[in-house]
Structures are given as C-alpha cells and as structure tokens.
C-alpha cells in the first residue's frame, strides 16, 4: 500500500468513495450564474470550498450540500455536487435523515445566522448533540439579508435596522458558545477574508467524524457592511483577534504581546505577555474531554467583537449517531432473520380449515 492511498485517519470520509482521478476547483463549479450581491462575502467562501474540496478527493456524486433559506442557502446551486435547497431552518434535520440513511455520502449543511439560530435553533442544537456525520457551515453576517435588513439573533444589542428603528432589544447569541453548550464534538470559527485560515478550518471539519460546526464571519456589504472590520483591518486585527492552535500557549497581538491567562477566580482574562509568567499562559486544548475551556474562550469576545478567538475551539471523538445506528442494524441483521412471513404471522396465529368442523 502506498502512502498516498492511506486514509489520513479521517474516519469521517472513510466510507465515502474516492474519485478515480485528481479534481480541480472548476470541477465543483456549476453553470448557474451566481446571484449574490457583488462584493458579498459569500463569494469568497464559495471559492474556498470549491478550492479545498479537490484535496479531499471524494467523488462529486457522493457529496451533498443541503441548505435552508437565506442568502447563504443559495450555496448548493453553485456546487456541482448533489444539492438540496430546503426550507427555513430545517437543513440540519433534513441533512440528518440523509446522512443517517446514507453513510457513503459526505453531507454538508450551509446555513446563516437567522436560518440556524433563529427559526432553526432547535434543529441545530439537536444535530450537534446527536453527533450525526454532518459539516455545518454557519455564515454569520449578523443581519437578515434576503429579507432586506432586519436584525438577526447574532446582531449586537441596540442595532438600528428596519425592524428596530430605535435599536434592537434582544441579547444576541454567540454561535460558538451555543454549539459548545450543546456539546458539539467539533466547533470552529473563521473569517471570510482569510482564505487560508478558512480552508484549513474547513479541512479539519471535513476530516472530523461527527457533527462539525464552523462559524464563518461573513460580510454583508449591503445591509451590515464592515461588521467584522475590527477583525479584518490591519490596524485593529492584531489587537482583537486571538488565533487558537491546539497545544500552543494562547498569545496574540503584535509579536504575541498579549496572552490569555486565568485570573484569581479561574476565569479567563487577557494580560500583557511581558507581565506574566510564561507558565501561566493558558495552553489551548481543543481535545479536552469537557468543553469548559473552549466555552470560556468563546466567552472572551464581546458583542463588539473585541477579543475574538478564531480557529478550532473543540475537536473530540464521540461515537456518531449514524455509525451507532448502522451498528445496531448490522447487529440485528446478524442475529435476527428478516422473515416477513414469520413477522406477519406472529405468535398467536390459527388456521381456519377449508371445511369448518362442528
């Protein structure tokens, strides 16, 4: 066996047939005209997905993109794979049924902050807790785009929008915190503008066996332009963006001048690297059994995105729902005989003779 054909420990994709020749990004493009607004962050994400899929080397016909409703949910139309553009909020449920019944498929969900966290919040958390083999890409632009600019469940409080002329009153969700609260086995955050970070996170998600949630900060240049500028512009980026690398001390800022430590109460806090003992800098552990550290990291960010960690918050192994179900069925098929006649007959049948006896 050559090294090239060894599966790189990626049991998530082990059951998915491999393409018999190398693929290119253009193999994953459709002939459909992409209809997002010019300048939309979705274009970048689409290009990144089309760009990294060839690395997986999966047969296109064994990949399915399922989406809900919203701008991001048009995504499947632009992917030359199987695709299902469903209804608002329900993509995780629909994709769960598909993934559970077809272990030979690589199933992706594309959703947005309104789709996943408002109307579809219930399906999202249940998909995460079940750990079905799904990859959920949550495009978070912190606004309703397709309905033309109402605040979303991730909008910062006080947001002035068409439906909140005096400012929104709802306290927002932090999608990474939600996912960790649901004990998702893989949770990551990335940004549309950083193609290489985005691709690396997508790759890690693809290789994870179980439900993976990737929050992608995505700019809506029409209704919420510049929402993530604090994390994108060179003058502020270093100060507020905290890159996470498993096994590494969490340092950020210019030349790693800032770091994450635990304060006297055990909570995470930001400190000047020069002012603390290097041993006190928190080392990121994405593989910890409990999601506590990952959750604490997710709570570092404020509504205005100051101190926003990006990268893989959590990546742990837990048996997947679809695999457990397949095992139960395989076991039952081994031990039980699928005799329809015997099933229908049951335990208490009787025979009526051709000539009734007195």
């Amino acid at each position, binding site marked *: 066996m050559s090294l090239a054909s060894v599966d790189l420990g990626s049991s998530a994709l082990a059951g998915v047939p491999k393409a018999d020749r190398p693929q290119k990004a253009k193999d994953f493009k459709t002939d459909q005209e992409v209809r997002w607004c010019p300048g939309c962050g979705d274009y970048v994400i689409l290009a990144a997905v089309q760009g990294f899929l060839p690395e997986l080397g999966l047969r296109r016909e064994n990949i399915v993109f399922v989406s809900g409703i919203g701008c991001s949910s048009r995504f499947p139309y632009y992917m030359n794979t199987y695709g299902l553009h469903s*209804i608002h909020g*329900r993509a995780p449920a629909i994709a769960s*049924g598909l993934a559970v019944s077809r272990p030979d*498929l690589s199933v992706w969900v594309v959703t947005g902050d309104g789709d996943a966290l408002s109307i579809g919040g219930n*399906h999202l958390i249940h998909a995460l807790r079940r750990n079905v083999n799904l990859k959920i890409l949550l495009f978070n632009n912190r606004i309703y785009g397709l309905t033309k600019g109402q605040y979303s469940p991730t909008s910062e409080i006080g947001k002035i929008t068409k439906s909140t002329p005096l400012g929104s009153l709802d306290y927002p969700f932090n999608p990474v915190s939600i996912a960790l609260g649901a004990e998702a086995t893989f949770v990551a955050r990335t940004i549309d503008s950083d193609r290489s970070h985005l691709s690396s996170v997508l790759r890690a998600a693809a290789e994870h066996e179980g439900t993976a949630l990737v929050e992608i900060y995505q700019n809506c240049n029409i209704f919420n332009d510049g929402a993530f500028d604090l994390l994108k512009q060179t003058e502020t980026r270093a100060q507020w963006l905290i890159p996470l690398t498993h096994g590494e001390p969490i340092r950020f800022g210019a030349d790693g001048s800032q770091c994450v430590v635990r304060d006297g109460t055990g909570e995470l806090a930001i400190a000047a690297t020069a002012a603390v003992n290097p041993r006190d800098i928190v080392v990121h552990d994405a593989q910890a059994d409990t999601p506590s550290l990952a959750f604490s990291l997710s709570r570092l960010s404020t509504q205005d995105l100051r101190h926003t960690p990006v990268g893989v918050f959590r990546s742990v192994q837990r048996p997947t729902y679809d695999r457990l179900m397949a095992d139960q069925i395989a076991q*039952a098929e081994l031990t039980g*005989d699928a005799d329809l006649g015997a099933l229908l007959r049951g335990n208490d049948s009787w025979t*009526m003779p051709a000539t009734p006896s007195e």
Partner: protein
Amino acid sequence: MAKQVQQLDRVVIRFAGDSGDGMQLAGDQFTSETAIFGNDLSTLPNFPAEIRAPAGTLPGVSSFQLHFADHQITTPGDAPDVLVAMNPAALKANLPDLPAGRDIIVNTDEFGERNLAKVGYRSSPLDGAELASWRVHQVPLTSMTIEALKDTGLGKKDAARAKNMFALGLLSWMYHRPTDGTLRFLERKFAKQPQVAAANVAAFRAGWNYGETTESFAVSYEVKPASMAPGDYRNISGNLALSYGLIAASRQSGLPLFLGAYPITPASDILHELSKHKSFGVRTFQAEDEIAGIGAALGAAFGGALAVTTTSGPGIALKAETIGLAVSLELPLVVCNIQRGGPSTGLPTKTEQTDLLQAMFGRNGEAPVPIVAPRSPVDCFDAAIEAVRIALTYRTPVFLLSDGYLANGSEPWLLPDLSDLPDLSPDFAVATERPFLPYERNPETLARPWAIPGTAGLEHRIGGLEKADQTGEISYDPANHEVMVRLRQSKVDRIAQSIPPLHVDDPSGAARALVLGWGSTYGVIDAACHRVRRRGIPVAQAHLRHLNPFPSDLGDLLRRYDRVILPELNLGQLALLLRARYLVDVVGINQVRGMPFRAADLEEELWTILQGAAT
C-alpha cells in the same frame, strides 16, 4: 351439578376500571383467546389521555370493549351484554351504555365510602334499587385475588394488582375461552419475574374456578366459531397492521425503510413497532420535533430510502411546510396521520375524521397531495402498501389517513400470501448519453426521475423555489409557473387512472339511495345498511379508500342515485368536497363525540332520512 350452558350467536363485553387496573391488558388477552377460538371479533379500547388520572375518579376510567360472534361482524358493538366494573367510577361511567337486563360484574371490594364519594354516590348503588334493572353479580374480586395469592409471598398490594387476571379468568370461564394462550402469554410477559408470573397465573385460575363453583353464575355461554374463509389468521390492530404494511412495502420496493417521527398519541405505537425491526433494515429516527421528523424523512427520501413520517393532526400542522417542500421536490414520502379529536390538542386518545380538509388543503400554494384512507384495522396493511405504491410511482408525498379507532381497534386478519404483494420497484434514474433533466416527466404518470446521490453524472440541485420545467433550474417566469402548477396537479389527477372502480354493495339492485363513507366508518356503515335493508328499504353502500384523487367513476356513481347519504365523524368534510366537485346534494350524518358511530344510531338516522325520501 353441571351448570347450564346457553348458546349465543354474538356477545359484547366491556372491561372497565381505573387506568391502573390493567383493563386494556385483560381486554387484549380475552381478545387473543377469542381470536384463537375462531370467533369473528372487533375491539374498541377507550382510555383517558392521562397516564394515571387520580385513582377512582371518572376521568380515570379506562375500558376495553370486545364484540365476538359466530358470524362475520364489522363493528365493536353498540352496547355491552356484560359490563365488568372494577370500581364505582367504572360503573357510573359505563352504566348509561348498558341496556336493561344485561349483566354487570362488580368488584365489591372497591365500593367503600371513599371510592363512592369520589364519583358522587351518597350510598352504594349495590345496596339500593338503583341497579334493579340489571343482573348484578357482586364479586369481591380484590379480596379473592389476595386470598388466592396468599401463598405466593407477594404483599397484599402487589397481589391485588393481579385482580384483572382474576376478572379475565372469570370471563374466560363464562364464555368457554381457551386458556392456554393466556397462560403462555403470562409466562412470556413476566419471564424475568417468575413470582409475578406465577401470581398472575394463580389469579387467572382462581377467577376461572370461581366461575365454575360459585352459585352467583348459574349459566355459562358458548359462541361457536365463525365460519370464515379458510386460511391462516391472526388478530391485529390497525397501528400494527400499518407498521407491517410499511415493512412489507420496504421489501417489495427493495428500499430501506426510514421513519422520522416524534412521539404523539395515537401514532407512537408505529414508531415503537418499527423500532423493533432493525433486522429488516428499518431505521427509526426519533426527532427533536414533528418538523424534524418529517425533515429527516424527506432527507432520507432524497437519498433513496422508503421515507415515512407518522403523527396525528397537531403534528401535521407542524409538518405542513415540509409537505409543501416534498410536493415541490416531487420526492416519495408517506405521511401517516392517525387522526384524533381536535382542534388543537383536542382529544388525544379519541377518534375523529376531522383532518381530511387539512390533508387536502393544509398547505400554502397549490400543493396537491394524494390521500389514502384504510377502512378497518386489517386494511391498514393494504392501505399502507397502496400509499407507498402511489408515493413511489408518482414521486409525491402521500397522506395515509388512519384514526384512533383503527389504530387501537383489532380484528382477525387472514394472512396475505406474500407472493400476491405488488412489485414496488422504484426505478431509479441512471445516467444516459443525454444531459440529465431532473424535471423531465414520464409521459404516462408525469412522474419525474428519482436520481439519488452516489449516481455519477446525475448531480443536480433542487429546492423549494419554483423550478423550470424539465431542467429544474430556478425560474420565476410567469408562464413556467403556470405550467408547473398545472403539471403537479395533473400528476396527482392521473393517479385516478391507477385506481380500481368502486365496489357498490346493493344486494337487491333496487336501491335509490347510496350510503357513501370513507375510512374507519366502513364497518359500522356496513352494519347499519344491513339493518336498514332488513327493515325493508333497499340501500346501496360504497366506500372510498382514495380521497385524492377520487376514483374516476365516483361522479357517475353519485349521480346514479336519488340520494347520497354520507356519515362522517366530522361536520361534513368529505361532503363539502363531493358537493364542490360533483354538484351532488350529499346529505351528511355527522358525529363528533370522539367515538365511532354506533350501528343502532346510524341505522335510525339512515332510516329517518330514507323514509323521508320515500314519502
């Protein structure tokens, strides 16, 4: 002295007690004995929505009625011949249904002051003249059960719980039921608790022996086996038959069965049953809600599974949007609605036919969905296969409209010959030289190709947005929308071409009036029509299994009669559809009591209408 044995042609018995008294179990077991004995039978369980309503109260009364006969019967019977009342509440709740002169077996041990007061009896009805019109058998069921079990080592409280088996033993003696099955059943059910098994067996035997020896039961009864078509039989409830129909359809289609469901009364038993049959490759997915249940099923359908979701009316309300998506995607999906009383939460454990218009119209846009309704518990098997046939052939969601009465009621089932089951092969799309068109149509059925992931060359994207004819690409074109709306409607209309002609039962051939029905009312309409004919007015009967589309010959049939009478357990839902479609002045007989029609009531209603027509 040998006791007198009286021959009867049919009997209706009703076990009634507290929710925790095990009346359903006693009834089920009496039913099994009766089925094995060879009587025709029909059952009507009736229980509260609460799992354990306060003990001894009227809302907590649970009952099980069984009608068995030496001839063919189609209803669970109107009124009991024998009422077993395990406490004052059971007596009070069921007495109004009991005609004078019939037998009442009461458990006198439960007629203490507290239990009497709970249901408003100031003094015991057993003492005064209140029950003078009935033959009352006073039996200290609880204390005799405890006495019979005193050597088993069980405490009094545990011993008393076997009193339902004492009652079953007594009734089994009264009606000469074979007991081997019950003894085997008890050994099986309590295999892991031998002491409990022995106690139940002892209580059952004590009940039987009590009947044999006591003077308060001077007569026992024989109901000879019914003359039924030769073959192998079993007793089966509607929900079980429906579950088996789905498994059989899975085998006949070669598709793995996938059920996405959320627990809801009275549909949950289908989820329970199917979850047992993983050896048949059945996948059951208990979802987080009704929407996810059908969503998961639709996802599985996209992947090529035989997809099913099961629920009751409130669940359908939640699934409506996804059913609309299935209409748009044109994927096979069976949606089982085990109807119950509504609106809203309504009457969870009671039966009604009030979701027909919801099934017809309960979606946004023009979203036609075929509807199939079983007519009896046994028919749930065939109706499930028929629903699957339509779903797979026409690539469409299909409603299977059962109800609480069919779900829990049971009757003998002549086991089908498996080689008679239809071939349901789905004919998946395969790649050809030509470009793949996801919305190209079969010229005969108008069905689109079912191209499942994993098929190279057929990668395609579909969704709930309006699609261009043939290509399935997004289209907002006005003319295309008109084409697609009419195509989806035509596809459903064409199903009528695959539906056999209606069977009309008119023995004299002289009927001027037609009694039409649909769904679970078949048995009682049949019984009422027989009675009306015996009283001298010829009447024709026909029953609809397909509610959408209607059979092609329905319009002609309706117009052939001076009068069309339509009993429904709703306020006239099918009547509304028939009037709109055929301009026929349908006369409704409508009841919404959460219970099936009674044959005697229906007979009187029919008689009144028909006499009015004759004058």
